[in-house]
């Protein structure tokens, strides 16, 4: 195994990675509707903090599923990715806990070894081949979000932005061409 990531991506930006955890309700157009605010405290869903990930960087890699560890406390998706030298590197991506993922229709059968998939993720800050996965694009074109915390999976524009970037051959949000 070797790490093919470019460490330039990981210039230390150790900004606080605390999810916004507190919001207040607000009335809407005079209706009885009180605001349901989805807290952005995904960190609260995790059994550890997320500062090992770089929340300011998004990357994509494409590879074949090695195993889908649909286990508590966090599901992990492992894929083999061919690096620039033609060597296979096994990457690992952390996701949410199964009890949370089943609510999004993600199960232990969602990813099968050998499936070709594309993963968008926030990488580990130390440059090893891993990260917090945000969304996964299957070969049939379906996107799923097995995310926990540490990435932009909740940004409604994220996938459409990345579709454009991937068409341009962009694989990291740090690419100068990656304009939002």
């Amino acid at each position: 195994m070797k790490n093919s990531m470019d460490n330039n991506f990981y210039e230390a930006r150790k900004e606080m990675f605390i999810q916004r955890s507190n919001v207040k309700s607000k009335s809407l157009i005079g209706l009885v509707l009180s605001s349901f605010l989805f807290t952005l405290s995904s960190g609260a869903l995790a059994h550890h903090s997320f500062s090992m990930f770089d929340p300011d960087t998004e990357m994509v890699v494409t590879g074949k599923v090695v195993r889908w560890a649909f286990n508590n406390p966090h599901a992990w998706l492992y894929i083999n990715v061919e690096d620039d030298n033609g060597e296979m590197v096994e990457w690992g991506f952390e996701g949410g806990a199964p009890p949370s993922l089943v609510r999004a229709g993600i199960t232990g059968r969602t990813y099968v070894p050998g499936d070709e998939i594309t993963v968008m993720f926030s990488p580990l800050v130390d440059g090893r081949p891993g990260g917090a996965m945000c969304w996964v694009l299957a070969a049939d074109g379906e996107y799923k979000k097995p995310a926990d915390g540490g990435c932009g999976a909740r940004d409604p524009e994220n996938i459409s932005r990345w579709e454009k970037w991937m068409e341009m051959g962009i694989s990291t949000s740090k690419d100068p061409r990656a304009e939002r």
Partner: protein
Amino acid sequence: MLHSRSRLLLACTMGWLVTIPAIAQINGFTGQVLEVVPPDREFATSDEHYQYLLEKANGGTKHTFETLPRWDGLWYTAGNNHMDPFIEGGMRGGKVREGVLTPAYETAYKERWRQLQEEGQVRYDRLTHCEPAGMPRWLLEPYNHEFINLPHESWFINDFANSIRRIYINQEHTNLAEMNGAHSWYGDTIGFWDGDKLITNTKYLMPADFTRWSPMTSNQLELVETWELKEFEDFDRLVVQVTMYDKHAFVKPINFVYAFRRADDLDEIGYRVQHWQCEESSNSYLDENGMTNFYLPGEPGYKDPRGATLFPELPGQTPDPFNDPVLNGE
């Protein structure tokens, strides 16, 4: 009037788009602000508080199976104010409120808060090492809860880390510290019913914390909780008013509110609470700098949560029933 699903959708959309300073919620859809309802008066101890409520309820309601409030099904956490007493100014850049914690605990919390603000994490989180959530963290940890009421006991379950609280109804405390020689993660909880409200008193707890971004609590933490299923405009909530007493950590007792809502979506798909893995499947660890990190495949210490057990020579000895090489003819 919007259909309820439309209202929910609209509200969700608002949730994505709007970021508003803090009041009182965390973890999921919360809707209306939860209000802290402090006790009628202040009490020196949780015993005094609990006895006052018991006397006020004339010894409590003696429920039968037929009359017990039923809180069946799966529930999620649905809001709380657990940070409000401790932090002013919000999670990003907020400051530790002074005079709430005792000097030693306030100093410790300021360091914890500094780590969180400057380093992105506290250097130690029990959950990273598969330790139990414990109390009071149980009240706000997410995932799926069950509340099973019986006339003589209630069982409050969180599938996260297999946490079960047992509430012994109309009974006295058993001094677990004496019996077991140590406090425990969930302590000893007694309770009584006041109509449809369940009032509890918890003692003999391990020192713990609310979350990795909250203050520590001591082995003197004691709680008086009032649990009640309440109707709201959007959806019902199981609301928990809590007074926490801690001679070591708190200058005076602190009042909190927590809530749970029904997990109808999980009930609909037939989800069932499972045993929670951690020790055998978690690859997180504290590195030499005290920071949380992960072992990846190929690294010493990595545990394959779908890999072979101690008996790899036998077929079917992996915890992966779907990709069985023998049955798949590989």
